[in-house]
């Protein structure tokens, strides 16, 4: 199948999935007790049944479920996710304000986990009984079984309080002045601990898989052929073997993307990272339905885009999937 057609089909499925997510989210929120009227009345310091009723009519909450759903989807198509009465701000602008922080955290953690995971996997696969190989096994077990918030708090105690290398919380230090680079450096310093915390789980997964596939690939017939050609160690490992070992790791990374996003909620909360995760946490407590729906929608969007990218990346490393020519 030509690559362009495959791409179109993928995008079509992605859109259909997004629509399904919208319907599901809205239905779930509809079923949950409490609605916007409650939020508004709370922010007014309480209201009687009559006022509540008027608010419901004003906001169309008295309409049948399907009408409300249709109106919601129509609005979303116009990038209107509603208004948060808790934050007194439109949900779209609220989310767009927080999205970059989350994207930065999620993408950098995912990249860190992938790069370090693959490197550890490759190096340890070359010496399956070496020290490093045992270290990877240990790391995998540890990273996978330790809860994120625990790892996070541990890192906080170690590297912010005992050895104050990194800031404790937030994303930026308002006292920092200077140009772009000063700010970038400041954000980077804040990013290190949350990024490592979030990456740790996935690093464990990826390094173990990379080690296993790499060991399998290094024993394959075509790697033997590469050696029989008299190629250098470097060409054998990084050109012939690694290229084949990457596909499973990329596939796993794609599947884990949603887990990384949900992991980000916890990590953001631990490190007060001003992203969608902390926003989600606060708005759930405040029962801010429009914001929750908006965040759910955006998380789904991030995951779907992540999966699309994974698909393209896979096509790049494996010609059998038909990405080229």
């Amino acid at each position, binding site marked *: 199948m030509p690559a362009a057609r495959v791409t179109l089909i993928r995008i079509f499925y992605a859109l259909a999935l997004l629509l399904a997510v919208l319907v599901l989210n809205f239905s779930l929120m509809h079923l949950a007790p409490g609605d916007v009227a409650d939020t508004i009345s709370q922010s007014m310091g309480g209201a009687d049944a009559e006022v509540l009723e008027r608010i419901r009519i004003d906001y169309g909450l008295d309409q049948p479920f399907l009408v409300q759903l249709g109106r919601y989807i129509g609005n979303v198509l116009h990038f209107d996710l509603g208004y948060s009465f808790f934050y007194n701000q439109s949900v779209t602008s609220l989310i767009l304000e927080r999205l970059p922080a989350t994207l930065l955290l999620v993408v950098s953690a995912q990249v860190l986990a992938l790069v370090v995971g693959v490197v550890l996997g490759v190096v340890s696969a070359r010496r399956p009984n070496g020290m490093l190989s045992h270290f990877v096994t240990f790391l995998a077990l540890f990273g996978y079984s330790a809860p994120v918030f625990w790892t996070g708090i541990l890192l906080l105690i170690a590297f912010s309080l005992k050895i104050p290398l990194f800031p404790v919380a937030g994303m930026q230090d308002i006292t920092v002045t200077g140009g772009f680079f000063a700010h970038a450096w400041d954000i980077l310093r804040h990013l290190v601990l949350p990024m490592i915390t979030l990456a740790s789980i996935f690093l464990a997964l990826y390094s173990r898989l990379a080690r296993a596939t790499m060991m399998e690939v290094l024993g*394959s*017939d*075509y790697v033997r052929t590469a050696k*029989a050609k*008299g*190629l250098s160690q470097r060409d054998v490992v990084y050109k012939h073997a690694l290229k084949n070992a990457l596909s499973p790791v990329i596939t796993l990374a794609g599947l884990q993307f949603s887990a990384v996003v949900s992991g980000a909620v916890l990590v953001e909360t631990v490190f007060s990272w001003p992203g969608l995760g902390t926003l989600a946490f606060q708005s759930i407590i405040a029962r801010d339905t429009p914001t929750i729906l908006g965040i759910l929608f955006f998380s789904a969007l991030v995951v779907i885009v992540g999966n699309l990218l994974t698909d393209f990346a896979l096509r790049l*490393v*494996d010609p059998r999937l038909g990405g080229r020519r």
Partner: protein
Amino acid sequence: MTEPLLKVENLRIELKLRDGVAPVIDDLSFELMPGESLSFVGESGCGKSMTALAIMGLLPEGIGRIASGKLIFDGEDLTTASEARLRQIRGNEISMIFQEPMTSLNPVITVGEQIAEVLRTHQGLSRKAAWDQAAELLDAVRIPNPRSRVSDYPFQMSGGQRQRVMIAIALACKPKILIADEPTTALDVTVQAQIFDLLRDLRAQTGTSIIMITHDMGAVAEMAERMIVMYAGRKAEIGPVDQIIDHARHPYTQGLISCVPHIMSDLTETREELTEVPGIVPSLREFGRDQCLFASRCKYRSGECLQHRPPAKGFGNGQISDCWHAEAL
């Protein structure tokens, strides 16, 4: 007399098994002359591939090793050569084609690049020159439209075409020795014949010596001047192919030959019923014993066969047989 190109002297290859060490190749000696074609035959598991891998210096790491003996190539002992020196030789002076064309090529690299990289590595060719020559090599192994097929991936080719690509890779640097390990076992019969034709023609053009490993006595008769019959890690018989087919001096060789209907019919004009060698090959663990390992399956078995490993007995025509009863056969 010319010097042999490759001299294998008392080669012993040991494999590490779960419960000890077993000699997969035990005291193997033979010589390969420049331009000569030598065949290895023997049942599955008798150590043919291990011999080939040992010559390439590619025994499975941590499992197989050369325990003793010498591999003298062009006056240089490969068993003591450095890894860097072996890399210079591999794919350049000694090449190998493997048993499995479907899995021996890298699935995610174009066939052109898989050929070109050998040329760049050993002959220092530029990218462009190596790529052009890759197309020429595809043409030489008779793949149609070589100019467009260089950028194909292996999955876009049939098994026969992939084996042709392997041959192109192996012959790219005009090696002195080509080791072909059952190059046609995985292919269907018509393709087998084409591959043998190709190898024969290329050999006539280049003068490369060939070590051909096969199960196929018919292929041996067509391709090789001399043959070595292996049994359970040991040499059973060696000699000129026509002499051995005419008068095998080892009961195992006789059994092998009688398994092949068309050779027999050529020789005797009668189509005897297909026989097979009865019994099974001893397991790796029994390989080191001081006795004739074929004895349990042999109808000529006598007392000494079970007590001592048979010595090599030479005959005037160049045949050598490791059998206590060689003269009587």
